[in-house]
Each structure stands twice: as C-alpha cells, then as structure tokens.
C-alpha cells in the first residue's frame, strides 16, 4: 500500500478543551515539524493526554483548531487524518489472534482475507513477531504486546503516530530497551511521533522536541538539551530534574548581571541581559546540580564575600554510582542538591552533619521567568542521570 505522502507536521491553534467546569487544555498553540519525535511531558492532569487524543480525533477541541499537514482536521475520523494511536495498555483485541489484530484496519476497509493477512504477516516480520501470528494477546509478554500494538498502528501507514505512555506498562529493564527501539523505528519510518509521558528521563532520551506542560498550559517547548541547560521557569527546572532553584531579592544590576541577596543572606548573581529588574524585586534562578562544588568548611569561618557561594549542613548523601547526591540544608525551604562526581567525592568526602560550602560559576546560572510556574511549589522527583 502506498504510504501517506501528505506531510505530517502538526499545528495546534489556540486549542482549549473543557470537561464541564474543568479546563484540561488552556489555549495551547504548538507547532510540531514533520518527521519530528515530539514528547509531551508533564504530571498527570497536565493535559498532555488530552492533547494527544485531540490530535488523534478521539476528543474534539472546545475551541481552536488542529491542523495536520497544513489542513484542518476538525471533524475527520482518525483514519482520514492519517493518524494512528498506540494506547497505554495497548488495547489489543483479546478475542483476536495477533495476526487478526494487526490486520484489523485492513479488514475494516474491506480487503479480503488473503491479502490483509499477507500484509499483516509482512509487518509482523518487521517487528520480529511472525512466529507469534496465531497466538492470542494474552499469551504474549508485555514487550511483545507492545510490538503488536505498534504493528497494528503502523499498518494503516499513518503520517503521525501517537503514543500514550507506551513504556509505562513495561518493567524497568524492558522500558530502557524499548526506548531505543522506538527512536530507531521513528528514524526509519520518517513520520512524526508524538509521545506522551510523565518520566523525564524517558522524554529527554527519545525526543527531538520536548514540550513540558503543567495544568493545561505549555511551560516550555524546545529541544531536550536546551530545556535541560536553560529551563524557562522554576516549574520546568524542578520538573525536568537535575536543577537547583534559588531565589533572592535584587540589590543591584550592572552590565547585564543582577546581584541578589537570598533569604540566608548569601549573595547570588544572575544574568538578566537587557532587562532592568527593580531593586527589591524577587528573582528566581537555576543552577545545574552537577555544576555545584562542595567543600567542608570550618565552623567559625566568617561568611565569605564571594557571590554564588552558600553555606549549609549536609542533610543526606545518596550514592548513585558515578556520582554522589549530596543534599544540603540551607536557609531556603527548597531542596538544594549537589551531584558530586565519584572521583571528586572520594578525594574530599563529606558526611551527614558536616558544615559545607557549595559554590558554582556565575556563567552556569540561568535566570528563570516568573515566580515558580503556576504558583505550585511541588518539588518533583529527581531525574536520576544514568
């Protein structure tokens, strides 16, 4: 069957979705280029799945439009749109064999038995499951079921593949392996993938384009490395993990650098570019955890005059293989963590209860917009770097 030659770029134009009084998606505009691997990342309830289902055609926007390949797809069935969805628990038809599952869409279109089974078999061979063609889904393992679900979706030759938390039903080991599979497959097929997940590490590993969402809005949309290095808001910084969020009141601004005083009296600097924040205003900044140096300090040394040094007590230490995660109690309520490489930690180890200084280079500081995302001070699970 000829592949869908239409372009698979997706555009959301001021899309809003309401369920009764609840706004699940709030005036979202987004452009996903053709052939990109786009991840929608966020906690449950942030609207990412709703957006996915609207692109698929399983939900209709309350307001706004969705365009695929430049044309509006409002009111079109999933098949007409050229989208195919891989469901969270795969939703393989339990009463049909693997072969019949994959051939299902062809049967709906009216192809006769021989032809559709032959096409299905070809696809099963591609995902290396042709020996399981006559089994029922219940007889397959999780990873195998996922590949059947993939084959079943791909047989429709979609221009966009939508994946709803495709890896969450798998155990840890399989999850890591399937991640690579998905990425490889996307590159081979050259179609647009939209992949919804709440796991940061998974998202940064597979995506070309990462969209971080919260409460129905997009917080930041960019490539994974840009998001990781320059998170836009405190919410993104906290959610993507591996960052410390600090804040302080502006004391002075010169040459594009603002000097701040934090709650504990330490001096911080932040790059502000051309902006001139008012003295006394509160600014938020982030510093990557692996850019923080930790050193023991003697108890009665006066506070150093340097900027970008804070002082606190070691609260806990977690060994993570290639680095040690050192959590430090500071004056601020937010967690402050230094990821110290194992070499450095071995050279100058610290223990719980030690007084330490944590310092970093001003060049590594990033200014964050706003006062912490949607005002929600939830601190998300750390992203563990593997």
């Amino acid at each position, binding site marked *: 069957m000829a592949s869908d030659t239409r372009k698979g770029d997706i555009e959301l134009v001021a899309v809003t979705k309401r369920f009764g009084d609840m706004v699940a998606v709030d005036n979202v505009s987004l452009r996903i280029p053709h052939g990109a691997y786009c991840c929608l990342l966020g906690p449950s309830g942030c609207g990412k799945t709703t957006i996915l289902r609207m692109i698929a055609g399983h939900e209709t926007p309350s307001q706004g439009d969705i365009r695929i390949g430049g044309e509006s797809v409002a009111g079109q069935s999933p098949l007409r749109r050229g989208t195919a969805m891989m469901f969270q628990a795969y939703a393989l038809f339990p009463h049909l064999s693997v072969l019949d599952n994959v051939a299902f869409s062809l049967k709906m279109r009216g192809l006769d038995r021989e032809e559709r089974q032959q096409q299905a078999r070809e696809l099963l061979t591609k995902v290396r499951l042709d020996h399981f063609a006559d089994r029922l889904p219940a007889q397959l393992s999780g990873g*195998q079921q996922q590949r059947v679900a993939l084959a079943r979706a791909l047989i429709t030759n979609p221009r966009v593949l939508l994946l709803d938390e495709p890896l969450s039903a798998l155990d840890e080991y399989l999850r890591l*392996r399937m991640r690579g599979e998905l990425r490889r497959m996307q590159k081979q097929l050259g179609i647009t993938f939209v992949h919804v997940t709440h796991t940061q590490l998974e998202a940064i590993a597979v995506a070309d384009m990462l969209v971080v969402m919260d409460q129905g809005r997009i917080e930041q949309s960019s490539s994974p490395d840009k998001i990781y290095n320059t998170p836009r808001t405190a919410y993104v910084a906290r959610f993507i993990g591996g960052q410390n969020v600090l804040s302080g009141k502006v004391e002075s601004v010169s040459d594009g650098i603002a000097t701040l005083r934090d709650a504990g009296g330490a001096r911080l600097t932040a790059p502000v570019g051309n902006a001139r924040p008012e003295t006394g205003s509160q600014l938020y900044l982030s510093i990557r955890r692996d850019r923080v140096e930790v050193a023991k300090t003697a108890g009665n040394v006066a506070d150093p005059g340097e900027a970008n040094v804070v002082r606190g007590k070691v609260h806990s230490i977690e060994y993570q293989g290639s680095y040690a995660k050192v959590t430090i109690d500071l004056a601020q309520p937010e967690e402050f963590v230094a990821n110290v490489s194992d070499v450095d930690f071995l050279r100058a180890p610290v223990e719980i209860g030690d007084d330490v200084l944590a310092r970093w280079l001003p060049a590594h500081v990033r200014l964050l917009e706003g006062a912490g995302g949607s005002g929600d001070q939830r601190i998300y699970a750390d992203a563990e770097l593997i």
Partner: protein
Amino acid sequence: MHSTADQSRPWTFYALAAFFTLFVLFLYGPMIVIYVLSFQGPNGGLTFPLQGVSLHWFDALIKQERTGDIAGAFRRSIGLAAMVTVLTVVLSVMAGLAFRRRFAGAGLVFYMAIASLIMPGLFVSLGIGLVFQMLGVTPTWYGSALGAQLTWTLPYGLLIMFAVLGRFNRAYEEAASDLGASNWQRLRHVTLPIVLPGIIGVALFGFTLSYDEFPRTVLTSGSSNTLPLEIWAMTTDVTSPALFAVGTVTTVISFIVIGLALTSIALIERRRLRRVSSLDESSTVG
C-alpha cells in the same frame, strides 16, 4: 484469613467446611432423593423403600398415562423458553448498550426494570390476565405468557449487561475507531465478541428462568399448560412416582443447558485470559 505464611488451617476452617458440606447436602439431598425415587418399581409408592428398580415411570411419561399432556407441555415449555431466550438476549443487549450513555428517562426505565424484578409474579400474572380479559383477547402461552415471562427475564438480562459492559474497557472501542472501524463495525467486530461470555450468561438466565417459570405463567398461559404448570397440576394430586420421573427429566434438561452455557463461557475466558510472565521473551528485543 490468617497470614499467608501460615500454612496450617485454623479450627474454624474445618468447622466452616463441615457447615458448607451440610449446606450442599441440604441443597442437593432432596433432589437426589427424587432422582432415586423416579426409578421406583411399577408397584412402588411415593416414598422409600424402592420396590424394584425400573424405568416404568419414565415409560409412563412417554406413554402419557396418568400424567396429563406432558409431551405437549414439554414442547411448549421448550419452545417458549427458546423464544424468551432470543428476545431477552436481543432486548437486553440493546438496552445495555443504551445505558452506556446518559439519556433522558434512563432512571425511569431502570427503576421499572427493578420493580418488575421484585414484583411477586402472581401479581404480574393477574395484571396481564385482566388486561387481556378486558381487551377480549385470549391469553396464550406464546402471547401473554411470553410477555409475562419477559418481565422476569429482561431485568436480569439488563443487570447482567450492566455488570458486563461496566467492566468493559472502552480502550478497545477507541482502538477500533482509530483503526478505521465504523460504529456498526466496532459493535460487531469488537464490542459484542468481547462481551460474548456475558451474553451467553444472559441467554442462560433467559432460558432457565423461562423454562422453570411458574407464578407469572399461571394466569397467562391460557388453555395450554407449560411444563411447570403441568407439574403443579400433578402436585395437587400426587398419586404416582410419575411426578418424580418428570422432575428428573426436567432437571436433566436444565443441567444440560447450564453445562453447555458454563462450558462455553469457561472456554472463551480461558483462551483470552491466560497470563504469561514477562520474562518469557523468546524473541529478543532491540
């Protein structure tokens, strides 16, 4: 009830198991007595001891001595049960599908069904009989009795469909739509096949409830009796073990129907639900 590490059974287990056994004996005992007695010898009476073992009374059934129009009643009961089964399945499945959405009047229909379920059968019978009498229509086993029995089987069918469709995962239907199925195709190729065990359950209820039904039929079957009515007539002058023979035969038929239904449900479920451990990945990934 004890922790799973505790392999030995507490004394309560044995006490409860004994109680349970007694209960099962209580349930089946009398029926077994009837089965045995139906093999009573030709000169035997209604109770033990057995005077010889014979098929005399089964024979009497077939020859229809002392038993009224058993064969006719039997035919009518089977026919009626078949009609009731088909109608119950079709109507309950349709209605069950309807209730998946909210629609005006859903509550009323639901409560009417529940009321119909717990209303004493005799009253339903009385009502229908009166209506037919007022309209001047003769009650018949394939007309008024059919309707009367449906008031009993439809609520059960509806409740079963509620349970079955409630457990049904909508993702299957979404996947079907996603793959290009129209609403009708979705129903035919995905929804109905998956809930087939439930539908068999509805059919089972429809058949057995109709086949054994008595109070609703008693005033609505008109001049020809169904089997339960015939049995009732026989009980009012219990004079021979022929009654026991009838009992045995009709129970055997019930068992056969139940067995067929339950076996097919078990077979379907077993094929679809077998679990495999995730370590069993014979073809490699990646």
